[in-house]
């Protein structure tokens, strides 16, 4: 194991560079003064951030992303947590194994397939081109992340703690509220963050089920890059990444605090 420290370091760095290079390529362009999305950068400015928050299409899309992201987060976290609680400790049963697989399926089913199906179905029920429709679509693909995280958190809870609470007089619903959920909270929070992130950068399903009024930032970037390659995309990307880093840091802090406590 301890052999080859050099090759390990080289390989590790290569992977990091491979993963990070696209980010470093796009990020500086967010601060360009030019109207073109390319190097070299003539001079730096914040005009594209300004554009992002003032141009109608961009502003609208940011608000849409926040609405849809929030809706998805709430819905997916609630449903995914309930599903995990229901599946808890029943790994042996065939039926529950089946349910578990179903909940995780959206992770592997191609988004295009889901998108086509949803478009057909939503049209039937009047959900096409509505916020609710987009939120439902995003929830479907966000739920697996919640289920995975919450299931892992629940597995880490010593069942005897819940027994202890019951012996002290807590009925099942109180045990859930005061013991199980608080102890699973780090997993629930990670799940919620993943759900929000999933909703934020989801493009394919959005293309299928969202109307012009539900254009999200990701969707807006997608069409902008085809129509006029503007550095506003880089600015949007910058916001995305900054947001992700902040959220990841928050999750890390929450987890750490819970571990220390």
């Amino acid at each position: 194991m301890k052999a080859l420290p050099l090759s390990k370091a080289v390989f590790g760095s290569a992977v990091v560079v491979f993963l990070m290079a696209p980010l470093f390529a796009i990020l500086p362009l967010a601060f360009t003064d030019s109207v073109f999305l390319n190097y070299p950068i003539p001079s730096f400015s914040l005009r594209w951030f300004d554009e992002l928050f003032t141009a109608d299409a961009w502003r609208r899309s940011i608000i849409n992303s926040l609405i849809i992201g929030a809706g998805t987060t709430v819905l997916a976290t609630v449903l995914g947590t309930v599903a995990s609680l229901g599946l808890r400790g029943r790994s042996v049963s065939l039926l529950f194994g089946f349910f578990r697989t179903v909940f995780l399926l959206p992770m592997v089913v191609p988004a295009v397939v889901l998108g086509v199906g949803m478009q057909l179905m939503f049209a039937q029920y009047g959900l096409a081109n509505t916020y609710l429709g987009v939120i439902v679509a995003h929830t479907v693909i966000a739920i697996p992340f919640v289920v995975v995280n919450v299931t892992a958190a629940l597995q880490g809870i010593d069942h005897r703690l819940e027994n202890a609470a019951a012996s002290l007089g807590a009925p099942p619903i109180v045990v859930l509220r005061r013991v199980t959920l608080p102890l699973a909270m780090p997993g629930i929070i990670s799940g919620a963050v993943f759900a929000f992130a999933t909703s934020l950068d989801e493009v394919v399903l959005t293309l299928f089920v969202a109307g012009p009024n539900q254009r999200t930032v990701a969707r807006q970037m997608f069409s902008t890059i085809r129509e006029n390659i503007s550095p506003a995309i880089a600015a949007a990307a910058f916001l995305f990444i900054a947001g992700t880093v902040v959220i990841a840091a928050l999750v890390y802090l929450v987890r750490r605090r819970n571990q220390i406590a």
Partner: protein
Amino acid sequence: MMGNAFIHFDNVSKAFGVMTVVDNLELAIQQGEFVSMLGPSGSGKTTLLMMLAGFEAPSSGSISVKGKRVDALPPYKRNMGVVFQNYALFPHMTVAENVAFPLKMRGVSRSETAERVGKALDMVQLGQFHERRPSQLSGGQQQRVALARALVFEPEVVLMDEPLGALDKKLREQMQMDIRDIHHRLGLTIVFVTHDQAEALTMSDRIAIFNHGKIEQIGKPSEIYDRPTTQFVAEFIGETNLLSGRVTACRNGLLDVAVEGGQQIKVASTAKFEPGEHVKVSVRPERIELAPAGGSANELSVRVSDVVYRGDHLQVIAAAASGPLVVKSTRKASAPRIGDEAVASFSPEQCWIVA
């Protein structure tokens, strides 16, 4: 038949898969009694406690409390304080919140809760630890929080699964006294699991010795120690010498037994035995007198083969014709030396037949 018992296990069995962990168990516990369960690891003590607390359902048989079957009663309605083997403190709550939990569940007012939590924590000498998290406490301190939490709501029945296992000797003895005191003061019925026989002997009204999911013997500490009925109990509680032999005569409550090696001993016994029957005789090391010459009814000539210093006494290994005998020799007697020839003697009343 045991209709007036406070807690009654009626023919209770528990199996996990094919493994029977509790086997057709009968046990009646009176109100206010302190009953200890003692037995080897895996003998089903925790399982029995968990069935009483409502976390495991008996595979067959029934459990009653105050004459009512509790089989259908969920744990949170049983009003029993439970101290779990691994403490089971809530890691996301402070010590005070842990202890306040059962009071909160019972709708006790805020001010009364604060007062009772304070008292409970003072009782277990954790007065300064209210705001700590369980993870910031030592094992012994956690155990005491668990104890305070199980007692603070003054349940009628308290189940304790090795509650003092992690404490050092001094604190342990202190807590033993405190629990005894609480038991007497509040008239609690306590079912207490322990690995420590000294603890069981000092604390209990009765001791139940478990083996393979069955109670081998149940009785007052003195009965268990002075009159174990089986070899298992005799060896599990304290130390014992076992002499196997054959009955040669049986009259007037006195047995003549020819032990291996040919010597005759007399054993007081109310039970009847046929001559020729094979028996095992148990005698405690401290009941045996080692002297240069005999003096009692039973005399075995021995040779001292080892002497072990034990602080308050000497443990002497004496080789008899029937096999090695362990003798507890007080410090007052002149110290035997390895190689000494001596006579090991004990009276017929100080030995007994075990199954």
